[in-house]
């Protein structure tokens, strides 16, 4: 019943299992505490109620500007502008999310796509503990090399309440404990899409270490995303997260 090839797969899985069995939970918790402090040595994140980030990318010669406004714990709005081509806004008010574009109208975001936004929102709360988001965090024994950094590989499975069983893989460099890479599957309006995000050029902004340049690799295509501005605790009205009137 157990053919040679099956046996080989079974042995390989055992082997792989041994490699990634990794740290015990206590050691992981210690590491998580260090990671939390690494990019926020002065504990600023606990005070962040709102944040505004302006980023810019050029893909295939096309400039794309994005402004993200977060009001924690559960409101976000993303305005994307491709000058001369189109604009698009996505907003989430803590319960419902919409995508609005003059060309394609208003679309309520539902199902897995909405779950994906909710998970993303919670995960990005500056003061959040990873243990509050992920029910299982596995750190591989073996360090992986990301660019010039030796990194911990952390495989994080979201809690059931987020309706996502796909783990997010995070890579933190061993020296500075800053996030260097992330692999994630995003549920988009067209279905699940694998993405790889590589972070670099960490600079101290608002007393925190913030990656000012990142690369998104999706379907083999890479986008360099540059942070132009990052503000915290700016007054933001709740109304900007609500559904706009349908035209």
């Amino acid at each position, binding site marked *: 019943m157990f053919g040679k090839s099956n046996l080989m797969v079974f042995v390989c899985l055992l082997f792989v299992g041994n490699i990634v069995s990794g740290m015990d939970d206590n050691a992981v918790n210690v590491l998580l505490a260090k990671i939390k402090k690494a990019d926020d040595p002065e504990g600023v994140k606990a005070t962040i109620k709102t944040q505004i980030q302006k980023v810019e990318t050029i893909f*295939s010669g096309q400039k794309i500007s994005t402004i993200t406004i977060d009001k924690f714990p559960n409101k976000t709005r*993303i305005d994307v502008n491709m000058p001369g*081509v189109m604009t698009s806004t996505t907003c989430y008010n803590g319960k419902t999310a919409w995508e609005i*574009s003059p*060309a394609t109208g208003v679309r309520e975001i539902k199902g897995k796509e909405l779950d994906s936004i909710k998970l993303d929102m919670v995960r990005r709360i500056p003061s959040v503990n990873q243990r509050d988001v992920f029910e299982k965090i596995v750190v591989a024994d073996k360090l992986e090399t990301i660019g010039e950094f030796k990194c911990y590989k952390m495989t994080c499975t979201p809690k059931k309440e987020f309706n996502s069983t796909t783990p997010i893989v995070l890579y933190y460099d061993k020296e500075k404990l800053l996030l260097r890479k992330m692999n994630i599957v995003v549920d988009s309006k067209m279905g699940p*899409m694998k993405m790889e995000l590589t972070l670099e050029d960490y600079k101290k902004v608002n007393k925190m270490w913030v990656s000012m340049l990142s690369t998104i690799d999706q379907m*083999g*295509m890479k986008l360099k995303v540059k942070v132009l501005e990052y503000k915290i605790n700016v007054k933001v009205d709740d109304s900007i997260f609500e559904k706009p009137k349908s035209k």
Partner: protein
Amino acid sequence: MFFKIKVFIVLLFFSCVVLSAEAQEDFSAIAEKTLNETWARIIKHNFEDKSANEKWQNIYKEARPGILKSRNSNELVRSINIMIAKFGQSHIQLMPPVSRKVKKAISLQLKTRSDKASLSVDVQKNVSGKAEKAKSEPMRGKAAGIGLRTCMADDKLCVLNVVPDSPAASAGVKMGDIIHSIHGFKFDLSKYTDLPWDMMADGMLTGNYGTRVSLELADPKGELQKRSLDRKAVQGSWIRFGAMPKISGIVEYEILKGNIGYIYMTPCFPQQIIQMHKIITDKLKNCKGLIIDLRNNPGGMITMAQGMAGWLSDKELDMGKMKTRNCPLQLKSYPQESAYIGPLAVIVNGGTFSTAEVFAAGMQDNKRAKIFGETTGGKCLPSVFFVLSTGYRLQTVFGDFIRINGERIEEKGVKPDVPVMSKHKDLLSGIDTVRETARKWLDK
């Protein structure tokens, strides 16, 4: 932060085309680098793993020595595009770093049109003759035509319609006139009968406001007349989207006999969809039926097919799948409360490509519209533009569209429910045969 931008990658798909070139020093090194990067990109992104595909490898190996002998940019682009054409997939092409003058493109074409592949790649768009300084400053740089569209009728390239008060109308150009040449480029329709000559002619007639078009037409009596007309029928701003060559947009509407609304639009970019929606809402919402004319529409952003469908149906329509190497992506419409829900006809022809084909297929598969005209061009692979390290621009494919019935659009095209072709005799009587057939169906 990463989440927000992800949707925009999938927006970057269109059809379109075009050329250009500049001479370079030390050309052999540039040629080799450009070829290497072109090949690597094509293989890396294709929706099927072609790295071990014998046919593709052989084409590449056979073409490589010749390509490396290219002495200038024109030769390099042409020879690489000839190789690409042999792969048999649409939406892959190499373009030079900087657009060359249109005149050069046409003259090159006249000299070298021995190969169908290069012809289809090279002639489209960017056209035109001597640029005249625009007299009206605010219009400078706007896209404009002479106020006519063309169609194929009985194997002749004909004038399909003439916009009132346009340069074409003022010069006495009439429906049914036969176009023999534009800028000295003679339309030899006996060769390459499957090429969308009307689409190419429409592209050649478009240019910057105030520039001049010379054309030869035969009137109903068969008398050849030379015209030199200024492009002053404004079509709006050029659509500039990243490394894609610029393209002009047109959205026109009319209320036809029997209170049937008619919209002609090209291509499928956000500006056109916004205009289409506005026209329907402001002018055509009470029409008994609506015709969307997508003849000679080269496509656009893929999400615009979903957007258009959303303005034309209040129900979510399954528009098929986009197969990529990593994952299949679902295409569904974005239904709008204010959508037009009356009877709908969509007109297509052999010059209807890409996003416009996806839209037509989706409308047909969901029985939301009846499709009139001719089978679409069947060039429907989602693609993306890259700027290579040598500055050359590469459009290459990363996906394939699959209809809800499992069929591909690429190569097959979308077959009309009601096949109908333009007739020269009808045009001479002022009747657009295809549009009239759709109108009559809606009027019943």
